[in-house]
């Protein structure tokens, strides 16, 4: 979707604000939210792409106003309710529904070291056809899906060069909507900054974007 999350090339956002000696979490609730996010993901009711899309669905003004972990809080409540792990009433009351059974968490203390290793999204065993090869000139498709996509707005319709084939990976555009992994080849594509931004860019600058096979077309 053409949401406010798709920020590459936007202007007017101001200077980068740095913080000296920044802590990992600015307050304990941020750490709890980070951990809750990992722990509820272990239920495997949704996937990483659906999780990213849920953040994209936060209304634009809220998205820009909220801190990072506030967005996670909002996203996680939506996911928990949508996928039936809690009800809206339970969120509002803060209490389990009367008479509801207690579940067994899939991630317990002993499972944490293994859980720190993220699942792989590579699907080398899947059958897929590589339509492009390294060195080939390609164009990023001009497409504007209303759902989730990882094809940034600023690259659409632009010409670049495939520099590497990463192998076969889960396709986020379908996976985010539970329409299957539909694995396809993923490439690193190099775009000249001048192709993306015009004469104002340095002719020595390049942007490399990872793109799935179906994001690309032949030139």
């Amino acid at each position, binding site marked *: 979707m053409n949401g406010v999350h798709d920020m590459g090339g936007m202007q007017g956002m101001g200077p*980068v604000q740095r913080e000296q000696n920044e802590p990992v979490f600015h307050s304990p609730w941020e750490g709890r939210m980070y951990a*809750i996010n990992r722990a509820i993901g272990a239920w495997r009711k949704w996937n990483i792409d659906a999780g990213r899309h849920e953040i994209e669905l936060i209304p634009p003004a809220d998205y820009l106003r909220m801190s990072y972990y506030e967005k996670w809080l909002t996203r996680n409540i939506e996911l928990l309710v949508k996928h039936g792990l809690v009800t809206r009433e339970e*969120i509002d009351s803060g209490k*389990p529904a009367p008479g509801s059974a207690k579940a067994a968490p899939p991630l317990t203390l002993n499972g944490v070291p293994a859980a720190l290793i*993220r699942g792989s999204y590579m699907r080398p065993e899947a059958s897929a056809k590589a339509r492009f090869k390294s060195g080939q000139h390609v164009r990023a498709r001009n497409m504007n899906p209303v759902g989730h996509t990882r094809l940034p707005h600023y690259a659409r319709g632009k010409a670049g060069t495939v520099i590497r084939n990463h192998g076969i990976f889960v396709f986020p555009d379908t996976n985010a909507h539970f329409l299957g992994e539909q694995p396809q080849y993923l490439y690193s594509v190099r775009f000249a900054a001048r192709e993306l931004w015009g004469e104002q860019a340095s002719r020595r*600058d390049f942007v490399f974007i990872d793109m799935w096979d179906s994001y690309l077309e032949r030139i």
Partner: protein
Amino acid sequence: MHTQDHEPDHDHQVVPPDPALRTKALESLLVEKGIVDPKALDALVDAYENKIGPRNGARVVARTWVDAAYRKRLLAVPGAAIAELGYEETQGEHMVVVENTAKVHNLVVCTLCSCYPWPVLGLPPVWYKSAPYRSRAVIDPRGVMREFGLELAEDVEVRVWDSTAEIRYLVLPERPAGTETWTEEELAALVSRDSMIGVVKVSATSGGKA
């Protein structure tokens, strides 16, 4: 249900309760329902506060500066080379290491969200996830680096890596001049998080704090 706290026509602008309180309420609900194990949450927080962070990446970088064979392995098969140093978490990642030279400078961003190589750098700083960095790194990389104090010569090629997929990028900075006699540990202490994102270079006086 109009109260004095908010204007009738702008209910959606009501400031929500403190996220800290809402998070606390959510955690206790999830614990009571058996959805999460609080001890697992403690261990996850501890892992990122105390174990997994940019010191891991700094050790990887320093090793490449003293061990040419390791450098080769890291560039060829990054996941396995990083795991050699005991950072097993990288094995779930599809890492790509991009090398800075006198003529090429690399910069990593995620314009769409906040993708970042957790096992080697830990969790990203707020600025990396912020709108100014995500919007500008691709259109004005030299301007962004200037704000970090790095002025690149015109003839240096800038390569910006937008992490749109599950590939995770680590910048391998150049070894600074004047460190020829330094030990691996001394070198690791020089390597900053920001140098492995690519917004700064490593200098013999930089210190590895940020």
